[in-house]
């Protein structure tokens, strides 16, 4: 749980040669890339991309996108300017990506540079033939609606352009800390979470595992999900490490106390242990996870490294349920027309793309629909949920009012969580049964 735990680098014999370039984009991205640079990412090239001449990470190449219009003052929080600037320097970006098989893109969305440049950079990297994996943060809620909206829009763009996006809302990470933590510390801890994720994925790619997870598999997983794939990385040591790791995982705030696992569609589990990692340990972790995510497709990887003797590290990336959305057109020239803008009041509770529900006035053309669809619409019109037909949406619906329900006499006691469900809430509320 402790963000300060930094795993020692693996011995070189166990790593695989794969050329990786890590881009830190924008001030936040560069800071995070700086944190990464402090550790030993053997063989990775670090590039800091910025639009002004401010903080620069040590040990990283600097790629300054200076434009006549900016006069060294940065984008001023306008992603449109950042995008234009990046388009101007598209060739340079592409050149920086040259030779890399995998590009990690680290950025904080919501500002000008991070939001504006990242999508273009992702496109440039793909154009140069690299696989792109983006690690981004979303701003704190207190940073205002404007930034949230920008961040959401750019997240959508990134999702269409990168091979995989792992996104961490700062707000979620802040839950990990107590409220008296300093402002700067909160930022640092939150970005440490993200770098932890970068490291977890890095390890997946670089270590020769007993059971390997292929990069393509990882990308497919991340692409399939909607932007907010949750990830959690826990480490436990000692003789009870398997059990401890499970407990830490199920209590992990980034997984909403296990709730994210329960509703996940796909879960990727990577285990890293020492030579003393026993089958029983692996079994225990997997059995528990299988139980916690009954509906998920679980992809598992395991690796053994000498440096992990007596320790066990479990990284979980869970992507939520999402009805298969129509593939978005990837426009090559620019994103003027591309992603649908999400409404400003979009919060974490609402998915960025919801399944469309016909309004009761509108009569859809009958021949275009299958029987099932027709039934769904009819059910929607009569106001009764299609109970037997669609278990998944019902489940999702029931999660919406959770935050409002008062738990009455159990308000202050330790919640009874069973497979991600809070049993203290009335059963009929959780199952979405209407009283009428």
């Amino acid at each position, binding site marked *: 749980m402790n963000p300060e735990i930094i795993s020692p680098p693996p011995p070189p014999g166990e790593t695989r040669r794969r050329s990786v370039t890590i881009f830190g984009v924008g001030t936040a991205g560069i800071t995070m890339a700086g944190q990464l640079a402090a550790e030993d990412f053997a063989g990775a090239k670090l590039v800091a991309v910025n639009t002004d001449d401010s903080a620069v990470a040590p040990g990283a190449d600097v790629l300054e996108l200076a434009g006549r219009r900016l006069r060294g003052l940065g984008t001023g929080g306008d992603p449109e300017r950042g995008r234009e600037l990046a388009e101007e320097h598209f060739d340079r970006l592409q050149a920086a990506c040259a030779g890399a098989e995998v590009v990690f893109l680290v950025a904080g969305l919501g500002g000008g540079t991070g939001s504006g440049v990242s999508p273009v950079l992702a496109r440039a990297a793909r154009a140069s033939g690299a696989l792109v994996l983006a690690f981004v943060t979303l701003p704190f809620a207190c940073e205002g609606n404007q930034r949230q909206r920008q961040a959401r829009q750019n997240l959508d763009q990134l999702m269409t352009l990168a091979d995989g996006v792992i996104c961490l809302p700062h707000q979620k990470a802040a839950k990990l800390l107590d409220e008296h933590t300093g402002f700067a510390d909160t930022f640092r801890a939150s970005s440490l979470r993200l770098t932890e994720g970068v490291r977890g994925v890095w390890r997946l790619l670089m270590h020769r595992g007993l059971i390997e997870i292929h990069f393509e598999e990882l990308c497919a997983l991340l692409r399939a999900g909607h932007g907010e794939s949750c990830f959690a990385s826990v480490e436990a040591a000692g003789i009870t490490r398997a*059990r401890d790791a499970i407990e830490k995982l199920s209590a992990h705030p980034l997984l909403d106390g296990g709730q994210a696992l329960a509703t996940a569609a796909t879960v990727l589990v990577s285990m890293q242990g020492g030579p003393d990692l026993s089958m029983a340990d692996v079994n225990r972790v997997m059995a528990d996870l299988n139980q916690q995510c009954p509906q998920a497709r679980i992809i598992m990887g395991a690796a053994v490294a000498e440096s992990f003797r007596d320790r066990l590290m479990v990284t979980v990336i869970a992507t939520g349920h999402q009805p298969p959305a129509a593939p978005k057109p990837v426009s090559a020239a620019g994103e003027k027309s591309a992603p649908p803008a999400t409404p400003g009041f979009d919060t974490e509770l609402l998915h960025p793309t919801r399944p469309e529900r016909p309004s009761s006035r509108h009569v859809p053309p009958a021949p275009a629909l299958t029987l099932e669809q027709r039934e769904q619409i009819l059910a929607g019109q009569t106001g009764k949920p299609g109970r037997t037909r669609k278990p998944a949406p019902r489940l999702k619906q029931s999660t919406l009012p959770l935050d409002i329900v008062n738990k*009455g006499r159990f308000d202050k006691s330790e919640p009874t969580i069973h497979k991600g469900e809070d*049993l203290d809430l009335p*059963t009929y509320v959780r199952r979405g049964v209407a009283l009428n």
Partner: protein
Amino acid sequence: MFDSTSIIVGLELGTSKVCAVVGEINDDGALNIIGVGQARSRGVRKGEIVDPRAVEEDLRHAIVEAEQMADVEIRSVYLGVTGGHIRGFNNRGVHPVVSADREIADEDVLDVVKNAKAINLPQDHNVLHAIRQHFLVDGHDGIADPVGMLGARLEVDVHVVHGHLNRLQNAIRVVKGMQLDVNEVVFNGLASSLAVLSNTDKELGALVIDIGGGTTDYVVYAGGVIKHTGVLAVGGDHVTNDLAFGLKVPQGRAEQLKIENGSALEDHAVKGQSVKITSELGLPLNTVNLEHLRRIMAMRLEESFQLIAQDLAPAGLLEYLRAGVFLCGGGARIPEIARLAEQILELPVTIGKTNSVSGLKSTLDQPEFATAIGLVKFGSFKFRKREARPTLGQNLKSVFSKFLPH
């Protein structure tokens, strides 16, 4: 010196009531219940203490009442504990028999049980019970007592019940604060099962579900031994809370509605009916839809049974329960609950009766006393064991044998 007394007290600090039951072992060695004291509990949530001072006060009332009724002074108790932190699992211990003639001695049995108890518990957890199931001698299963048999390798299966140390200590501290000794701490579910099951039931296989105020404890017996224990931190309080939320009435009123109009099954006959809520003066305040009330209750209870079934199903334990399911605890009073359990568990369900002890018949018949009576029964087993205590010489021998090289 008080070891010689034949008074055994079971104390349960429950979510809905604090209850002390006094039992006496008569000269024939039979257990007789001679006193019961109880008080409404105010400081317990989900089986765990949240307000020690309130609990202390309630405890004092219960003890005084029990003392008056039984006309004895209570000095020590068998304390029942529960809570969502308590877990049970099965473990196997192995011990090689090293004596020259390969005969299994008492010490070997002690050692193998000790090995079985040496388990990797989560930090801060303590073993509450380590209950022997069967011995295995050279891989042969199902041996009840291996002493005197020949073999090279002795194994034992134990069922270990463990819980969070600090949370267990909380209950013990409150009792000790009253200048009472705690003889032993016993898991409530285990105590209830002792109260309601006969030896035949244990042999045939039975599931005891104790639906208390704050938790639902369950224990599975098969082939005469405990196979599984579990705690679900959901109980009668949750039903009340659901009703209070769903019907928009205060907790006290919800409790009353639950007792007066509750049922575990959703009955279509009540469709459209409603219940009038009246104030103390008899004036009508509000009406509550009976159908909603039943539905809320039925869903919660249904879910509890489903969760238990889900817990037992992976180990295939539901197939072993030939004596069926026994319900006890306050929740067993809910009308139709046996039928609901039958529907979900697909097993014969009965309301557990504490038949195996004598005395105060009218109180003993009530399902909510199963735990406290079971605690007394647990104490009586210990009492009999104490009577048959080994002599000093044997004691010393077993002490020294621990230090002898094997």
